[in-house]
């Protein structure tokens, strides 16, 4: 916690404190629907931050982050369903597996000098490849889905992560805050300087003594590990997993929209982006219901238009624009 606020101006601390109080108290003030939206906001704030480490800090564009969500989710869920392993241990397994997956992809790509668009497509390819593989993996339910046993309502069991939405709300809030603290620490550390140097100009970074291969690997591994926890959360919150859903390219795109719209490479950007886009999507759904429009697709068209408007008029994202207006440094 202290790492989170050290060195911030008083005004920023006040804003942060207000946000903290609002978020901590929210479950007591809102209904089940708003709570579910908030959980989704935090979920994307968390995954967005994980992705931001790799792309926003280190400049490596991944369009296949659903791979790590999926592997993390299936790892913990399968251990729980088949061997009754508690999800905290399952999370450990998820972290190990996803870090390995990230490192393998990173090793192959960076050793062979694959970068930019090619790297992005390689990440899509691995995610899609895995999706189809899981579609045929009967032990994990294949395309029919893997389901977690649901206990009776009202019981909160932290050990097995069975409980009401409020428990999941605080869990994902803790993850999000943890990710923010970690990002802030990393950005100010040696690693953070190295990553930004690699993002800006890899050749110049090498000439300054930075082993760019190694630090790109660290970025991919860490980002994958963090994303895996989002997968574990997803599995135990929704209680069902389908390869088609969890590994799809659409999921990967959802993960990266927040940080880009919010402000790539900034600390607050992924969070701001998630809290703008998720309610926007839900708000549009509500609006459509209100207007009595039921044609499929209208909602997404509107969403696409909003996305287009933001990227055309605020190509650096929402947060840097807000921060400048408020007189904060756009971190």
């Amino acid at each position: 916690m202290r790492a989170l606020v050290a060195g911030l101006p008083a005004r920023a601390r006040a804003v942060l404190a207000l946000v903290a109080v609002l978020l901590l108290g929210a479950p007591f003030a809102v209904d089940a629907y708003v709570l579910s939206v908030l959980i989704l906001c935090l979920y994307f704030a968390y995954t967005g931050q994980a992705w931001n480490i790799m792309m926003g800090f280190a400049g490596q564009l991944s369009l296949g982050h659903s791979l790590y969500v999926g592997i993390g989710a299936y790892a913990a869920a399968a251990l729980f369903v088949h061997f009754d392993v508690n999800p905290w241990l399952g999370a450990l397994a998820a972290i190990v597996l996803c870090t390995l997956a990230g490192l393998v992809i990173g090793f192959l790509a960076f050793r062979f000098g694959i970068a930019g668009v090619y790297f992005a497509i390689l990440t899509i390819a691995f995610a899609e490849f895995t999706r189809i593989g899981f579609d045929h993996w009967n032990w994990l339910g294949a395309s029919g889905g893997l389901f977690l046993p649901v206990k009776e309502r009202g019981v909160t069991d932290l050990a097995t992560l069975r409980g009401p939405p409020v428990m999941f709300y605080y869990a994902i809030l803790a993850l999000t805050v943890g990710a923010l603290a970690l990002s802030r620490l990393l950005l100010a550390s040696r690693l953070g300087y190295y990553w930004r140097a690699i993002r800006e100009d890899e050749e110049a970074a090498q000439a300054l003594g930075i082993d760019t291969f190694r630090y790109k690997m660290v970025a991919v591994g860490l980002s994958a590990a963090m994303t895996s926890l989002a997968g574990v959360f997803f599995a135990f919150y929704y209680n069902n997993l389908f390869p088609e859903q969890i590994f799809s390219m659409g999921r990967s795109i959802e993960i990266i929209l927040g940080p880009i719209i919010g402000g790539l490479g900034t600390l607050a950007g992924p969070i701001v982006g998630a809290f703008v886009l998720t309610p926007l999507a839900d708000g549009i759904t509500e609006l459509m219901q209100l207007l009595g429009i039921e044609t499929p697709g209208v909602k997404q068209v509107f969403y696409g238009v909003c996305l287009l408007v933001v990227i055309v008029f605020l190509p650096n994202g929402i947060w840097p624009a807000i921060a400048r207006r408020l007189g904060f440094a756009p971190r």
Partner: protein
Amino acid sequence: MALLEVRSIGKSFRGLRAVHDVSFELADGAIAAMIGPNGAGKTTCFNLIAGVFAPDTGAVALGGRRITGLRPHEICRAGVGRTFQVVKPFPQMTVLDNVVVGALNAAARVGDAEREAWRVLELLHLDAKSQTLAASLTLPERKRLEVARAMATRPRLLLLDEVMAGLRPTEVDEMVAVFRRINHETGLTILLIEHVMRAVMALAAHVVVLHHGEKICEGAPAQVVRDPAVLECYLGEEAV
């Protein structure tokens, strides 16, 4: 004793001979210049020393240790700092952060690197710009940033690739004074590629002349500029 030993290095690109059988030595604490017409292979020579490519033939040693075949970051760690002819700042980082990245090469902690960065920025008169994004610097400022970053790595040998190009004469004199001072105070060895003869004559005690990828002459500056082979390659045969 020689700090840098370059022994008959050569490199071809797709059959085109960029550098062929170039050898020279650089004494510890010396300032030397590498000159030659455009396309003579000077920058390729730098890239061979700094490890951007491995030479097809020959070897490079720093302080008696063979550095041929090491990767660029390892060569930097070994004590070679370099600038790029086409400057490569980190545009979306502040001037200070640019130099901190370089300083982290030798500093144990980020705080130490920051102090070192400030010191180098002051030396190169960039301290007033420390919080500016590198993207918004002018070209002469970017050239100085390039030098500051390389110097912050605390090299034993500094390779400067045309850092005076595009500077006004007074700015050239200022840069010359900075390099002289650093060389004098810290004993830093400097090898520069330079077309600005004003700087070469003022700084270098030793000059290596390349032409068509080969060394055609080396020696003291005054002696080199009178060498018929050098005049020929610069001015064409008729002038001699």
